């Protein structure tokens, strides 16, 4: 990015230096505040005994026993595959659905446009914890009990309203002239969307993909209701079974499993970051 070069005035120089100092101080201290508690959690996974750590001890003894047990004595690897399956499917379908819907909301005028989305946004504020059985019976009726596809269906439905709204907001920042000139060049609805507009909203799609991918890793209430057999569990409700039993909590295994959840998500974010960086102005160029 070309930096605008202001006149060299001393005060500006000092303020810029101050800004640098503040920026790094802020980022580094925030990083410490984030990493410290997570390190404490992580160390629990490498300790013998069965307790969550209270503080950070960096002296031994260390053990990989908890991870070994996680993979040998529990269904954790299977849960992990299930979760990946659910997360990836949810991500693909949900991102597709909200991108299309967001585009429609931004570019078209149609019946019910103003009220319908708002209605669902408001209805979604009602916590459904009291009626989770509703999903159970629905799944029972249409053969979706203990099936990942039904869970995916509910996840996607819950994710649509807010994210469609955000997507619409993002589409709105793309100038309308682009569509119009594409139309003049004879592009149809779909080509305009696919070739002209879509590349410009890539950063938002990256953010959305990340959110959609992450949620199945942390959601355990619905999953617990809908998945009935242990071999179908997702990691979240699988790990819950380690700590549900008040008398026999396997917290060390729980911590080990949680660490392994954080890794792919952090990795994904690392790779999606370049999408955040390619801003709107650079959006037209590929890569």
């Amino acid at each position: 990015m070309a930096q605008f070069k202001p006149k060299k005035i001393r005060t500006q120089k000092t303020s810029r230096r101050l800004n640098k100092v503040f920026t790094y101080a802020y980022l580094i201290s925030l990083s410490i505040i984030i990493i410290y508690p997570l390190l404490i959690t992580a160390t629990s996974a490498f300790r013998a005994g069965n307790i969550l750590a209270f503080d950070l001890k960096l002296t031994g003894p260390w053990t990989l026993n908890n991870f070994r047990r996680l993979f040998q004595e529990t269904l954790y690897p299977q849960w992990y595959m299930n979760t990946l399956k659910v997360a990836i499917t949810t991500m693909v379908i949900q991102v597709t659905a909200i991108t299309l819907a967001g585009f429609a909301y931004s570019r078209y005028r149609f019946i019910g446009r103003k009220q319908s989305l708002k209605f669902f946004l408001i209805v979604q504020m009602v916590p459904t914890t009291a009626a989770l059985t509703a999903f159970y019976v629905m799944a029972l009726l249409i053969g979706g009990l203990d099936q990942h596809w039904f869970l995916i269906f509910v996840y996607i439905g819950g994710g649509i309203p807010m994210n469609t709204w955000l997507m619409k907001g993002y589409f709105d920042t793309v100038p309308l002239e682009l569509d119009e000139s594409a139309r003049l060049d004879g592009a149809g609805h779909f080509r305009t969307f696919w070739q002209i507009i879509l590349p410009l909203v890539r950063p938002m799609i990256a953010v959305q993909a990340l959110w959609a991918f992450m949620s199945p890793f942390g959601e355990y209430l619905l999953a617990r209701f809908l998945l009935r057999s242990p071999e179908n569990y997702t990691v979240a409700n699988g790990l819950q079974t380690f700590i549900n039993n008040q008398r026999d909590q396997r917290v060390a295994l729980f911590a080990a499993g949680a660490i392994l959840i954080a890794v792919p998500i952090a990795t994904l974010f690392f790779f999606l970051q370049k999408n955040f960086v390619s801003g709107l102005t650079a959006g037209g160029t590929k890569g």
Partner: protein
Amino acid sequence: MVSDWKKTKLGLITASAAFLLAACGGSGDSTESEAAAGGDTADTTQTSDAAGDFSGQTLKVTVGDDYTSFVESIIPSFEEEYGVTIELAEIDMFDNLEALPLDGPAGLGPDVMIAPYDRVGGLGLQGHLLEVELPDDGRYDSMDELQVTADATYFGSPFVIEALVMYYNKDLIDTAPTTFAELEALTEDERFAFASEAGKSTAFLANWVDFYNSYGLLAGFGGYVFGEEGTNITDVGLNTPEAIEAIEYAQKWFQEIWPQGMLDKTTSGNFIDDQFISGKTAAITNGPWGAASYRDGGVNYGVAPVPTLPNGEAYAPFAGGKAWVISSYSEVGELAQEWLNYVTNEENMMALFTDYTNEIPANQAARKQITDAGDNELAVAVIEQYNTAVPMPNIPEMAEVWTGAETMMFDAGSNNKTAEESANDSVEIIKQNIEQKY
């Protein structure tokens, strides 16, 4: 403007939904659950002495992962004897019980499963469990029977028993303390002084903000939950003069001896384990389930009954344990009853104890064998402690007591209120909640 495309789409969806619904053959009627249970109904037989009655039936057994290998080992001979098939599923005990009210009617639940004693009565009274016949061969005494009784009906076969015991660190003290006076003397020992809080000691720790743990203290002094053997809900005995005396004694520990963290109910259990494993504590109270993590943590521990209280009475904790129960949605109830009798017989229970989970069998003959052998310190201590233990009230109103009693201990222990005030306030709230909810 509305497109035809949309109409087609909706049509397809409605069509497929209708098709699926039709395939289900409606719901709520019995055909569905019969099909799901996959066995022929066994409601025509009157008695079931002959093993041939059951041939061809399928029994669905669900246990938590801690019992899988045990059940797998005893399945073959049962299958052979009755000519049946057993399907074993591994689901966490609590998850499984929570799911029963839904899975049962949907025809997905198991026929037999395991439930902790304190859940048996409630599930039975809500109609999710079948009545069970207990064999008359002396395998249970009246206390065992009481554990699975609600409304004068047996809802399960006692399987294993548990009670709080004392663990002590053999590297720090030579012999197990036998009285609370000895424990108090230990707190003077410099080795157990708590580093970050002056004048505090971790010589002996007990999770007394948790009612399951503190009940033994209250009951030992003469307090109780509900009068008339846990059936009279209008008589809550947590604020009797004896109970208040017990609370005052606990208050002394919280205020003068223990670190502040012992009042923190979400982490105090964790704190106790941490201190014990790191060798800063001489003795603690915990159930038999705690042993494995102390062993993994490398503690050279011994086990003994909890010391006698200052008034000379024995510590009287809740008698806990688990029972085998039969789902009331089962189509093979009689076979399930046979399974219960088989699992809990002496031979299988000894196998569970020696080869699998080391839990103490409820079966009296097996229990006697273990006590006579006397080589398993933990088991002997639990069995001994169980004899002074009190069965948990088996009624739904018990739910109100757990939280109320926790608040009582916290308020007294943190000196927010006097022992008497906190006891009276808590009993007031417990009674009020029972009145308004039940």
